[in-house]
């Protein structure tokens, strides 16, 4: 008995991350009622007081010139070898965005932001969809492909943009606003970095749970890269080298568990800011046919063999949508991507008359 007591004391003294200590908790701030819960409907003339804000988080890594062609990194070379089978000149993701804008041009309460990263922050903040998609968006998404598939950086960026928007909105309007994040991505995060390089078992694309080792293609970036100050806007260090904003050499990056945590945090913004609704959806950009046609030269395009990359990417995007309370869709090819299934209805039903 005495021994047990002593052991408990020692555990208490040195209890760290691994154990839970008792905490008295109580809600000191809570929503009185939620607008969609009061049973009423939104009069049509008040619909602009019930905004819907869609943040498209569009991946822009260099390998998209193969997986969702055409595309260019700005210099003539590898990417220029790939075209669409039917000779189309607009990548599937760009076409889907243009269609979304066109089909919702009349919806005055709909706002949208398109954000992409390569790495570094690109795109534009929330603006009314009725104003049209900025002209340069499609061209930039097609002809300025970037270096990395830093999904963690992208999700952090999305969370920042959402929080900035929520903080800039009054609490009453916030409660009537619906936020949707739609991630258009290959799904395979690169580079994956691990702070712990001592592995007894390795996860695999078919058994992806657990900690992933440093991506084979990342060289020594995970342990020795990103030493310089990294500009979060340009994703470049002072010497012009590509860097990952917020990454500390030797630390973790793009570990699946961290990505899921970020998706959960995005969904929790609803409670954190008293927002009408927040959810994270994912749409996969992956053309297995293009990858197969590319042959051995594309074998290591995503740091994994093609089939494995496909399985792993789908696992990541599906898990993100689940954690973010949203939906996952994998079109057969990016050209078949359709964003009309994104729910742009208000948090409370609009009155019939």
């Amino acid at each position, binding site marked *: 008995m005495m021994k047990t007591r002593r052991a408990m004391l020692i555990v208490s003294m040195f209890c760290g991350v691994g154990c839970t200590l008792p905490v008295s908790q109580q*809600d000191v701030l*809570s929503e009185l009622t939620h607008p969609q819960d009061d049973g009423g409907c939104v009069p049509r003339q008040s619909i602009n007081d019930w905004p819907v804000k869609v943040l498209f988080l569009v991946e822009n890594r260099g390998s998209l010139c193969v997986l969702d062609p055409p595309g260019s990194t700005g210099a003539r070379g590898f990417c220029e070898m790939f075209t669409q089978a039917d000779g189309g000149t607009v990548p599937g993701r760009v076409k889907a965005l243009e269609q979304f804008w066109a089909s919702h041009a009349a919806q005055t309460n709909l706002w949208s932001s398109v954000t992409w990263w390569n790495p570094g922050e690109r795109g534009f903040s929330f603006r009314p969809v009725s104003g049209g998609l900025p002209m340069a968006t499609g061209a930039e998404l097609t002809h300025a492909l970037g270096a990395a598939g830093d999904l963690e950086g992208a999700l952090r960026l999305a969370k920042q943009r959402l929080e900035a928007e929520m903080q800039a909105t009054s609490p009453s309007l916030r409660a009537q606003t619906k936020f949707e994040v739609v991630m258009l991505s290959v799904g395979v995060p690169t580079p994956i970095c691990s702070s712990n390089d001592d592995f007894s078992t390795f996860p695999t694309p078919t058994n992806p749970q657990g900690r992933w080792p440093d991506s084979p293609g990342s060289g020594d970036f995970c342990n020795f890269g990103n030493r310089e100050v990294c500009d979060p806007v340009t994703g470049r260090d002072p010497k012009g080298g590509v860097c990952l904003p917020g990454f500390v050499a030797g630390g973790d990056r793009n570990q699946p568990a961290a990505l899921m945590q970020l998706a959960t945090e995005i969904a929790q913004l609803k409670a954190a800011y008293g927002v009408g609704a927040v959810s994270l959806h994912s749409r996969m950009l992956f053309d297995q046919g293009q990858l197969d046609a590319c042959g051995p030269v594309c074998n290591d395009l995503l740091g994994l063999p093609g089939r494995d990359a496909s399985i792993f990417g789908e696992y990541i995007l599906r898990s993100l949508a689940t954690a973010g309370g949203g939906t996952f869709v994998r079109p057969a090819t990016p050209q078949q991507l359709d964003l009309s299934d994104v729910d742009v209805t208000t948090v409370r039903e609009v009155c019939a008359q």
Partner: protein
Amino acid sequence: MSVLALLLLAATPADVTLERCPRVSESEVRRLTRIELANGGSSTLRIRATVECVASEAVVRVDDPVTRKSLSRTIDLANVDAKVLPRYLALAIAELVEASWAELTLPAPRVVEPSGEAPGQEVRAAAEAQVRAPGPLRLEAFALARRFPSSKLWQLGGGVRLALSGPILGGLLEIDAAHGQRDTGLGQIAVDSATAALSLTGTVPLDSSVTFTGSLGGRVGVGIVTGTPFDSALIRGGSFAAVWLGPCASVKAIASLGHWFASLALEGGLTLLGVQGTFNGLSGPGLVGPWFGLSLGIGVRP
């Protein structure tokens, strides 16, 4: 008259001034005084003598630079012949000077020496230091900053400390109050606390004015969490209080000047029983997890 007094007299000049004595020649009195003092005229220590005649009396005053004092004596002139009056006054001045210098012949005061060997200088200095040293109690007021990293909370506050220090071990009682707050998406959450800490301390003196102490103990108190909504029409605010406690350790540097001292202390601890506010079910600021504190104090050792 002693030999010393005679030698002094032989070497000392004199200035003589007469006031309201019309029957007497001042120059004659001065001349005779110098003779009486056997003036050699070589010393720079000049005696000043003043004779003031009041009715039938004279007040003789001497300012003596050798013993650095002044003397005066009143003498009766009623029965003194006018012819001998200058010499009479010269003698009176000389006697007064001699009387002044008589202290020089006194023996030096005796010191009673105890028996046995006298202690060394260091032993004596140490004993003196102990007699003059401040007591073992320290009373201190301090300002503090405390950080709970797991709930991203900073608290600022202040308090008082009472320490009892022995040669190696001692005890410490600390009472403080602190306030912190953090904005959330629904409003502001404030966390106030009032705590007391009791610790066992160990002291390592660096030199006579700087010491280091380490302490190990526990902190217990009450945490009060209050939510203030940004929009009270949409959000309900609330408040609650609960007990907070945990073990803690600290290190402190103390710089002393006499009975006063200043201190800089670093504290670390781990919450065993925490207090935390939540908002819409999400974790907010609170007294949870590990904490770190920095305090700056000033105090006195009575």
